[in-house]
């Protein structure tokens, strides 16, 4: 029962970011909301991914601190966190670049056409990199989920 519950929880973790079309996921009789699908813009999407991940790590900490939970499960969660947190940090870096590019673009609105075009290009590139970082965070979690299953 425990393995099934953990797998379901970890599966939801992967699905929340991997399946943006799902607005909610049923787990243990509860309906887990997918915050990412509520986002309408790129920055909102990035914020939803990071906020969701923060909640997941905080909840995972409670499980790891529980003396009743077997060490193998804790190690599995450790493997997930070890890869997922760096993926979240990549999203953060891409997001910071995107926000700088967006601010530059807004500041360039009264400038020459050349300056404006340059700022628009930079914003476009930063947006693409942020989208890629968000997309890359999901497989990292899903891949580690497979490793956790293998460990059991």
């Amino acid at each position, binding site marked *: *029962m*425990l393995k099934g*519950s*953990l797998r*379901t*929880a970890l599966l*939801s973790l992967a699905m*929340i970011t991997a399946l943006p079309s799902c607005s909610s996921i049923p*787990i*243990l*009789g*509860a*309906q*887990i*909301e*997918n*915050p*990412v699908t*509520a*986002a*309408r*813009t790129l*920055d*909102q999407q*990035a*914020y*939803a991914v*990071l*906020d*969701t*991940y*923060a*909640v*997941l*790590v*905080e*909840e*995972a*900490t*409670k*499980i*790891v*601190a*529980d*003396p*009743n*939970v*077997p*060490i193998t499960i*804790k*190690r599995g*969660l*450790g493997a997930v*966190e070890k890869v997922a*947190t760096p993926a*979240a940090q990549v999203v*953060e870096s891409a*997001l910071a670049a995107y*926000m700088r590019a*967006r601010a530059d673009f807004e500041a360039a609105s009264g400038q020459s056409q050349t300056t404006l075009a340059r700022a628009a290009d930079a914003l476009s590139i930063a947006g693409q990199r942020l989208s890629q970082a968000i997309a890359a965070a999901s497989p990292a979690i899903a891949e580690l989920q497979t490793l956790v299953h293998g460990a059991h």
Partner: protein
Amino acid sequence: MPNLLLQLQLLLAALSALLPLIPADFRAKAASFLDLAGRALSVSASVAADVSDLADRLTDVRAEIEAVAAAGRAVTGDEFDAVMARITTASAAFRAALETAEAAAT
């Protein structure tokens, strides 16, 4: 689910009370089984509670994102800094808890 687990735990407690009535030859084996079942239920109940808590918290996050999207506003730098600080803190707490768990396991 938590209600079902609670009922099973109560049933186990009731069965444990009957242990003295079991023949001595089987008593140790039955006690061992009940102890194992109790531990499994205890773990399952804690994970079920965590998942329920997770559902509530993700519902809150979704409501927050919906509000930001409905207002059509951009997420601020302060909000991003705050969420990254939470991830950093939570990650450090998680790794510390895992180290403690590893130390206890050896």
